[in-house]
């Protein structure tokens, strides 16, 4: 009898892939570049999620919040537009341009709206008596649409930026959204291999809120703790997957609580107690305080994340580096990716290329008012 193989040798070995870059001087780069980088890591995903975060793409509407909306049905569209008209001045609204391709089956409907909040009674109440800012009011509306309107999801809601994501390989999603027609000074991209949660259009990365966007490789096993903590501050998790909490957590820590990006990263991936015990007293006090106050913000489990805003791009690993992250510099550009080759594909000769330590954020902020 012929010996039987012990393994299925054709098995695909996959995991998520991410890549991103920033021009610190604000030079705008066309979408083709990020597509080339993420496409090199095609085999890190399995076709169940691809997406892009793009900054500086709407300079003509940069004073307006750019709402990218995804609709699963006509009723969701109608209810959302009634909601937006009641609460916002809509400077411009249009379909997000797409291209029908064979690789993308049954896409939902995508529209975008460039808006500012209307001074309704509710708005005046929020500003004058609840101390809310415009950003707080936008967050409240995003949560309301995602939570209350069945089949409507806010894909992104920041100024001069947008997220483009869905079910497919990232290069197919890029083709679907005609991404080569956009130019931006910060780009991130994600190739998804969903493990614990469904591969659906809202579950693709990036996850966003205001101009925060997160792409993530790994799994956040502290999701339940993080989610319950965020709910106390009015953030509602509706996207059925773990990464969503990172976007809201950074909004809470940086925008609401005023932590620096460095300290916010420390809250997400703090040093172990055994290491804190060895530090000089001022650092020991700082890290002890962060861990005591933000114990529920700690992200447990393996992760590499890139988070972007209009101000810059930050890369962060879990404390024991269970997912890959490589960074590089060339002129005013900073690159971050799951694999060195994904950087080399778009920057063949970086002046510096390195692997950051676990828990050590790589922070690349844009210079001045880009």
């Amino acid at each position: 009898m012929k010996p039987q193989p012990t393994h299925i040798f054709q098995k695909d070995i996959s995991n998520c892939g991410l890549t991103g870059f920033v021009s610190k001087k604000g030079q705008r780069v066309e979408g083709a570049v990020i597509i080339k980088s993420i496409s090199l890591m095609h085999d890190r995903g399995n076709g169940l999620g691809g997406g892009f975060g793009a900054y500086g793409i709407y300079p003509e509407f940069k004073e307006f919040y750019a709402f990218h909306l995804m609709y699963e049905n006509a009723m969701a569209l109608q209810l959302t537009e009634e909601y937006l008209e009641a609460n916002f001045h809509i400077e411009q609204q249009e379909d997000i341009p797409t291209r029908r391709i064979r690789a993308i089956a049954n896409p939902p409907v995508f529209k975008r709206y460039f808006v500012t909040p209307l001074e309704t009674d509710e708005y005046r109440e929020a500003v004058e008596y609840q101390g809310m800012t415009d950003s707080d009011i936008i967050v409240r509306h995003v949560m309301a649409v995602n939570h209350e309107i069945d089949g409507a999801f806010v894909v992104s809601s920041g100024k001069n930026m947008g997220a483009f994501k869905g079910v497919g390989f990232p290069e197919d999603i890029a083709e679907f959204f005609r991404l080569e027609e956009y130019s931006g000074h910060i780009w991130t991209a994600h190739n998804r291999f969903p493990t614990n949660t469904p591969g659906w259009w809202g579950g693709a990365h990036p996850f966003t809120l205001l101009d925060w966007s997160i792409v993530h490789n790994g799994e956040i096993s502290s999701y339940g703790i993080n989610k319950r903590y965020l709910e106390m501050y009015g953030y509602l998790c509706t996207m059925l997957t773990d990464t969503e909490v990172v976007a809201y957590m950074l909004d809470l820590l940086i925008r609401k609580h005023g932590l620096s990006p460095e300290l916010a990263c420390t809250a997400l991936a703090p040093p172990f107690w055994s290491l804190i015990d060895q530090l000089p007293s001022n650092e020991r006090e700082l890290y002890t305080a962060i861990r005591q106050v933000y114990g529920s913000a700690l992200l447990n489990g393996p992760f590499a994340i890139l988070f972007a805003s209009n101000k810059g791009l930050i890369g962060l690993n879990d404390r024991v580096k269970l997912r890959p992250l490589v960074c590089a510099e060339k002129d005013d550009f900073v690159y971050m990716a799951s694999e060195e080759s994904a950087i080399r594909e778009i920057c063949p000769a970086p002046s510096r290329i390195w692997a950051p330590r676990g828990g050590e954020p790589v922070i690349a902020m844009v210079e001045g008012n880009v």
Partner: protein
Amino acid sequence: MKIDAQGIYYRDLNNTIREAVQAGTDEIELDNVNGQYFIGDGINKPVTITINGVPGNDLGAFMNGATIIVNENAQDNIGNTMNAGKIIVHGHAGDVLGYGMRGGRIFIGKDVGYRVGIHMKSYQEYKPVLIAGGKAGDFFGEYMAGGVLILLGMFTDDPAKDKHGYLFGTGMHGGVIYVRGGVDESRLAKEVGVFELDDSDRVELEGYIREYCADFKLDAAEVLKEHFVKVLPRSKRPYGNMYCTMPK
């Protein structure tokens, strides 16, 4: 034989390499490699594969007797369960280097990532040797069961970085680690201790260093003039009592 790997999908590239090896080619040079996975995996003939560019993950996995020379940097998971042969990387290498390696040599010119030499093992004449010329991340020699790990800390792109990370030798229960210029004992895992080299260690170490220096065209005397220490496990069963006391 030269192959231009520019834009070639990893499966096609590896099929071409395997066909060439099958046909009896003993020298293969790959140009414009960028990110192709699994190069040299499972090759069990003494061929030499030279790589120009950055090869993808899982380079030389299950390799059994071939030589791979990477002229630039390499990525993660090099030499997974490698049985025999040699991998030389002139630049830096990533995480999980030499995972479960059970024979042969991995020589890296510059820095290496996290979990280098994780669960290396040895048996009778099979004794893997992994040398890193630069600095290393955390978990160096994690769960190491056998073989030889050598950290030089000499050739790095980041002079400000520490020679090695935290949790050095976590779970180590076999084999030996030699470190040029000593270790930071506050970063050692509780399972390991630091010892001075004896005469037989010196002979063995010198042999490996001379081979490494010949491959990288370095002066072995310069490398060997610094004091080396060896790190050994304190126990062959570090977790024997983790869940319940083992019967004697």
